[in-house]
């Protein structure tokens, strides 16, 4: 180790040589501190988004590094929120990276006492089969007064207020084509 490097390393010597005699500032700065940068600056990309909680619609910026969300914070450009977020919005990173999030399909068979694993593709197929079956079973061309209804009351759906417009659109479109009418969401609750 050269003398110069040693001086760099041992802050006592930096104290003696520099302006920070008391060893409370520049002399004691560590190399980590010197090279510290916010993780947002090293993000691979920044994506514009909107807070998923209430309907104020605050702007968010999503920082992504190695295909992982590393930070979500307010977007100052938004005329609605001007970069600010409430505690819920501020917890968005934790929301999307939560370790308790379910990421696997879970299946409970009729009368079952525990969850079971189920392959996503199988689950999709089973659901499609059940929709077809229930729809047919509860199909109704006309009501008991003979009025044409062309529908099923066997299938219902609840939800949409947390979803995208495009999703609600596809849902309503598909349900309507299925003849399902008991379609509801939080707006009624």
């Amino acid at each position, binding site marked *: 180790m050269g003398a110069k490097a040693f001086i760099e390393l041992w*802050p006592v010597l930096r104290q003696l040589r*520099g*302006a*920070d*005699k*008391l*060893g*409370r*500032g*520049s*002399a*004691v*700065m*560590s*190399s*980590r*501190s010197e090279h*510290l*940068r*916010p*993780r*947002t*600056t090293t993000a691979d990309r920044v994506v514009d988004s909107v807070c998923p909680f209430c309907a104020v619609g605050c702007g968010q910026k999503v920082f992504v590094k190695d295909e992982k969300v590393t*930070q*979500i*914070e*307010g977007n*100052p450009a938004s005329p609605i929120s001007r*970069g*600010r*977020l*409430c*505690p*819920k*919005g*501020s*917890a*968005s*990173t*934790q929301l999307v990276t939560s370790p308790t999030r379910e990421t696997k399909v879970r299946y409970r068979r009729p009368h079952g006492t525990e969850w079971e694993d189920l392959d996503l593709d199988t689950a999709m197929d089973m659901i499609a089969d059940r929709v077809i079956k229930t729809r047919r079973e509860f199909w109704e061309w006309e009501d008991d007064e003979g009025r044409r209804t062309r529908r099923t009351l066997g299938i219902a759906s609840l939800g949409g207020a947390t979803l995208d417009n495009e999703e609600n659109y596809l849902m309503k479109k598909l349900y309507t084509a299925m003849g399902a009418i008991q379609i509801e969401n939080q707006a009624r609750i």
Partner: protein
Amino acid sequence: MTHSLHGRLDDVTGDAGYADHPKRKGFFTDTSVCIGCKACEVACKEWNQVPDDGFELTGMSYDNTQALGASTWRHVAFVEKPVHPTTADLGLPGMGPPGFGTHESGLPQAAPAGEDQATASGDGALRWLMSSDVCKHCTHAACLDVCPTGSLFRTEFGTVVVQPDICNGCGYCVPACPYGVIDLRKEDGRAFKCTLCYDRLKEGQTPACAQACPTESIQFGDVDELRQRADARLAELHDRGVDVARLYGRDPEDGVGGDGAFFLLLDEPEVYGLPPDPVVTTRDIGSIWKHVGAAAATLVGIGVVSFAGRRR
């Protein structure tokens, strides 16, 4: 040397050995517009990846955070204060027919709107004070002064930061802080506190709490400018008759040489859990060393006395 231990110090950053440095950065927390949403607490934790601090319902109004600590770098205090006591005159059971207690004598006068920062509410008035507390980034920071490793240090922004790569968890900073800000994180062993988002400052960004704060209760900026803003705000409130408003930690002549993070409060500091007249302990370091030296000399004296007349 004395001036850099206590009293007014205009260039705290320069005093810490930075020849060419940015302006001192800090917070002005205006509690008169705080709505107690706790966005600051969460935004801070998200950015700094601070672990949760336990799930305990405290019954302290809506404050379940309780205090600043190693895993809480922003803490919103909630103080409920009835301006006119309403309990006694509310026709308690056993005091005659409902509603006919001492209340009959007439409704207490509701405080006029705005005055005293109390909200008129029904037959009384209530103050629900909220304040987001944070590390004060003192001009004379005891935690920094007493840190034996140089882990706690004054940054180029004039803020006080723990360097986690240096800290060995000696814990000296903990009792040194006159505000009870810094603490050791048990499971980690090291000391932690607000860094004023040191990393963000390096890129000219706003600290996470101030950026999130919906009502600009937490304002970030150059300390000298923030002080002017605080003075203007205080004058504005005083003009409106909010006499209870006062600044806390703004005075560069106070016991810690003024705080880098200071406050506009609406009640006495201790009501919010803040010390009314904090003094940096190292203000007395001279006296302390003097007495230590004298005592050491006394011990030498004791030694001499012990062997008096026993020379070989």
